[in-house]
C-alpha cells in the first residue's frame, strides 16, 4: 500500500506583506497504484504542489502524508521521487549516466551495499527503462532527449519509490519520442505497482496515462474525479475551457459571437500575486458575473467543493456520491 495524500496543503513564498500563495488548501489523494493527472495553466501551482511533496517547496500549512504518515524529507530513505521537466538540466553533465543512477540507489540496503551490487542494480534499471546497459558509461551530452528522460526515470526508480511525481516529463521532448516515454511509463508503473502524480498541461497526454484527473486553477484544485468523468462531463467552467482549448483535428472553432462572452474568454490569466476575490475564476468565467449579471456572489463568495467531481463552482451540478473516488473526507470516515 502506498497512498500519497495532500491534506489541506498550502505553500506560501515571500514575506507576509509581499508574498505569493502558490498553493491554497489543496486536498488530493494519489491512490495506491494509480496515476493521477494534474492539469492547469502555468502559475496555477501544480509544480509547486509537486515540489512540496519532495521537500523542495516549503509547506506553510497542512500535511503531506504517505500511507497516513508524514512523507520523510530527511535521511537516505526517500519513498517519494520526482522526474523533472527538462532532461538537459536534471542530469549532472560531469557524471556518467551510471554514476547518476548509482547515487540514488540505497546504500544502507544490504542488497545494494557494495559497489558491485550497485553496478548490477544500475544495469537492471537501465534495462528496465529499455536502454542499453552500455550507456551507463556515457555522459548525458551523448544522449538524446528521450534517452535522458529515461535515465532520469531510472534514477527515480533507483530509490525504490512508492510514489513518483512526474512534472511535465514529456513537454521538452519531440512528439516522436514522447510516445515511447509515455508507453514505457504506463507499462512500468503497472508492473511495479508504483503510484504517480502526473503533471502536464497537455490534456491528451494526461488522458492517455491517468486514471483520475485533478484540475488546478490559481493554487486551488477546482475539480477532481475519474478521468472519464472529468473529461466527459466537466463540471467546472475552467475544466470546460481547458477541454475546449485542446487542439482537435480540423479548423479552430469560431469564436463566440456575443461580445461580452468573447471579452471574458479573452481575459488574461489571473495574476497569482493579486488573486481575485471570491471565486478565482470569475474574471474569465463564461458563465460568471461578467456574462450573467445575476451571479454577483462569484465576486465575493469562494465556492465550496460540494459538487459533482468536487467542482469548486457555485453553479456546478450537485454531488452524486456514487461518482466520487479518492475523496479525503470519505476516506477518513471509513478508516
Amino acid at each position: 500500500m502506498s497512498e500519497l495524500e495532500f491534506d489541506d496543503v498550502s505553500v506560501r513564498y515571500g514575506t507576509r506583506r509581499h508574498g505569493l500563495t502558490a498553493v491554497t488548501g489543496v486536498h488530493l489523494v494519489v491512490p495506491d497504484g494509480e496515476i493521477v493527472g494534474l492539469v492547469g495553466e502555468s502559475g496555477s501551482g501544480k509544480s509547486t504542489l509537486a515540489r512540496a511533496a519532495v521537500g523542495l517547496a516549503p509547506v506553510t500549512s497542512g500535511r503531506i502524508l504517505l500511507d497516513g504518515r508524514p512523507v520523510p524529507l530527511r535521511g537516505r530513505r526517500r519513498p517519494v521521487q520526482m522526474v523533472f521537466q527538462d532532461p538537459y538540466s536534471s542530469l549532472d553533465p560531469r557524471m556518467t549516466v551510471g554514476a547518476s543512477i548509482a547515487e540514488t540507489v540505497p546504500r544502507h540496503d544490504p542488497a545494494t551495499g557494495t559497489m558491485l551490487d550497485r553496478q548490477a542494480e544500475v544495469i537492471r534499471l537501465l534495462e528496465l527503462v529499455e536502454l542499453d546497459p552500455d550507456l551507463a558509461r556515457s555522459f548525458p551530452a551523448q544522449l538524446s532527449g528521450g534517452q535522458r528522460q529515461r535515465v532520469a526515470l531510472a534514477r527515480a526508480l533507483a530509490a525504490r519509490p512508492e510514489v513518483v511525481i512526474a512534472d511535465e516529463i514529456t513537454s521538452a521532448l519531440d512528439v516522436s519520442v514522447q510516445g515511447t516515454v509515455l508507453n514505457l511509463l504506463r507499462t512500468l508503473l503497472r508492473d511495479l505497482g508504483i503510484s504517480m502524480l502526473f503533471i502536464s498541461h497537455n490534456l491528451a497526454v494526461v488522458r492517455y496515462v491517468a486514471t483520475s484527473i485533478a484540475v488546478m486553477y490559481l493554487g486551488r484544485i477546482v475539480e477532481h474525479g475519474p478521468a472519464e468523468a472529468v473529461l466527459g462531463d466537466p463540471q467546472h467552467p475552467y475544466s470546460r475551457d481547458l477541454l475546449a482549448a485542446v487542439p482537435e483535428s480540423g479548423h479552430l472553432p469560431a469564436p463566440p459571437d456575443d461580445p461580452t462572452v468573447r471579452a471574458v474568454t479573452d481575459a488574461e490569466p489571473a495574476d497569482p500575486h493579486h488573486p481575485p476575490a471570491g471565486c478565482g475564476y470569475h474574471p474569465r468565467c463564461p458563465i460568471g458575473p461578467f456574462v450573467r449579471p445575476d451571479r454577483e456572489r462569484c465576486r465575493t463568495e469562494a465556492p465550496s467543493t460540494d459538487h459533482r467531481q468536487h467542482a469548486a463552482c457555485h453553479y456546478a451540478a450537485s454531488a452524486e456520491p456514487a461518482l466520487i473516488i479518492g475523496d479525503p473526507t470519505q476516506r477518513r470516515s471509513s478508516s
Partner: protein
Amino acid sequence: MVAPVTPARRPSSATRWLAVLRTPVGACAGLALFAVLVLAVIAPMRWSVRANRTDVAAMLQGPSALHWAGTDNLGRDIFDRVLVATRLSVELALLATVIAVVTGLLLGTAGVILGRRAARFVSAVVNIVVAFPGLLLALFFAVIFGVGARGAVLAIGFAGAPAFARLAQTLVAGIEQRDFVAAARIAGVGRVRILLRHVLPNIAESLIVNAAIGAGGALLAFASLSFLGLGVQPPSYDWGRLLGDGLTGIYEQPIAALAPGIAVILAGLAFNLFGESLAKGIGLTATLGRVPLGRVRRRPVSAEPGEPAADAAVLDVADLVVTLPGHGAPIRPVRGVGFRIGRGEAVGLVGESGSGKSLTALAVTRLIEEPARVDAARLRFLGADLLTGTAGTHRRLLGTSLAMVFQDPTTSLNPTRRIGGQLAEVARQHGGLSRSAALALAIDRLRAVRVPAAARRAHQYPHEFSGGMRQRAMIGMGLMGRPTLIVADEPTTALDVTVQRQVLELLESVRRDDAVALLLISHDVAVVRQVCDRVLVMYAGRIVEDLPTAELATAARHPYTRALVAAVPDMHTDLDHPLATIPGRAPDPTRFPAGCAFAPRCPLATDRCRTAEPPLETDRQGRRVACWHADVPVGPSVTTAAGGGHE
C-alpha cells in the same frame, strides 16, 4: 535493440584545454608561463652562488658584457639576482593564490553546507568586504600579520579571497538552480556530497581560469608589498625587494630598477594572458564559431529552369541552403528548401527539433547573421529579390510588409520601454508618422489584437503583460505596417492551451480580415492543423512533403508524415494500445545519413533509400513528396511500434 552509443557531440574537457594551446595567444602565453616556471625551478640551483658573490671592486657598475644589468652596492650581479628571485616571487604568488582560492571557495560554498540562513549571512559579509580595494585589504592584513614574507603571503591571500568568494557564490547559485541538484536532494544525498560531487566539478573550470588570472595579480601585489618594505626581508630577496633596492639609484643607474620591473611585467603577463586565453578558449568552444567562413565552398546557385517567378506569390523560395561553421566541416542544417506562399495563404512548417524549420524561417526573413550563410537559387518577397542588394535596401520593405512573431515574447520586446512606444516606433521609422499619431495608431492596433483597455496598457511595460498579452502585442507590432506576410515561429509553444487558442484565433482573424499570408512554424502538428491551409513537413533540413492540411490525417504519402501524425495523442486515442512511436532518433545536422535521411527509421526503407536521395516530386494536384515508396501502405509496425523501446 537499442541505438549504439554515439560519439560525443561536444569535445571532452581535456581536448578543450588542449585546444587553448593551439590558439596563437594561448600558445605564446603557455610557452611564457612554462618558461617562467622552469626558470623558477632551475635559476636558484644554477646562479644563486653567482648572485650572492659580493665583489667590492665592482660596486654599482653599469651594464657591461660581464654584468648585463650592472651590479648593486655590494657588487652583486643584478641580472643573476633577478633570475634567482624568480623562484621566491612565483612561489609566494602561487601560495597567496592558493590561500585566496581556498578561502574564497570555503566562503562561497558555505551556503551549500550550512543552509539558507547562514548563506545569507556569509554572502552579506562577502558583499561588504568585496567593496574594499584589494591592495587596501592587503596592506591592512599585512599590518595585522606583521612584516615579512609569511605575513605578506597571508595578507595577499586573504585580500584576494573576497573576489573568489563572490565568484564561487555566483557560480554555485547557478548550479544549485539546476534540476540535477534538486534530484540529488530528493534522493537523500547529503549536503557535503552534493557540494563535492555535483557543485564543485561543475564550477571548477571557471575557478581554475580565474585562479590563473589571480596568480598574475598576486605576483604584482607581492612586488608592491616587498617594494614598500612590507614583504620579503633581507637577506632574502624577490623582485619587489630588488625593485626597491634599485630605486634608490634610479637616476645614476636606471637598469638596476628596470630589470626586476621587467621581470614582474613579463611574469605577470604570462599568468594573465594564459588565464585569459583559457577563459576565451573554454568559452568559445561552447559556440560553434571557430572555423573561418573562407573555408566554406560557395554552393553553385543555379536558377531552376521552367519555373517562372510567380508574381502572385508573397514569398517564393527555391533551393535555400543555410550553412553554419562547424568543428570540422561546415554544417548544413537546411539543404535545398523550396516553397511558395500565395496571398492570404496560411502555410504550416512542421518538423522536430533539428529539422531546420526555424532556420528556414530566419533565412527567408533575412534575420540570419554572420557567421551563418544563406544561399538560394531564388528568394523573392513580394516580387523583390532579397538575394541582391544589402540588408539596408530591404529593410523598409521587410519592415512594413513582413511581421515576425517569435516563440518567446519575453525576449522579443524591450523590457525598458513601454509597449505603446515600442509599437509606435515602427510607424515612426517606416511610416514617418508624428509621435502622437504613431501612438494613436499603436493603441488602435493593440485594440485590434484584443488587448483589453488598450489605451491604458499601451503605457505599461512588457513585464506588466502576461505571456499571451505580450504575444498579442508582438502581433500588434507586426500590424503597425501593412503586412502581407506574418512569419510566426512557434508562437504558442510558451503559452498555456487556453491562451494558445486565443493567439491562434487572433492570427486566424488577422489573416481573414486583411488577407495576410501566414507562415506558421511549429513542432506541433495539431496546432498547424487548426490554422493552416497547407503543410510543409521538414525532416533533416529538407522538405519531405507538401500537402493540404485536410489530407494530413487521411492522405499523407511520406512515411514520416504518417508516423508523425499517428504519434500525437489526441482526445480520441485508444487507451488500450501503446502510443504510436517512431523508432530511432532524428539525425544530427552534423551527420546526415546518405540517401534518404529518414531511411534508418523508416519501415519501408530499401537499399535504394539508403544510397540515393529521393527528389521532391510534384504530382498533378500540386502536392509534393520526397520518397521512393510514397503511398506504399505502412505495416502495423510503425503505427504501434511494440514496446516502444527503440530510440
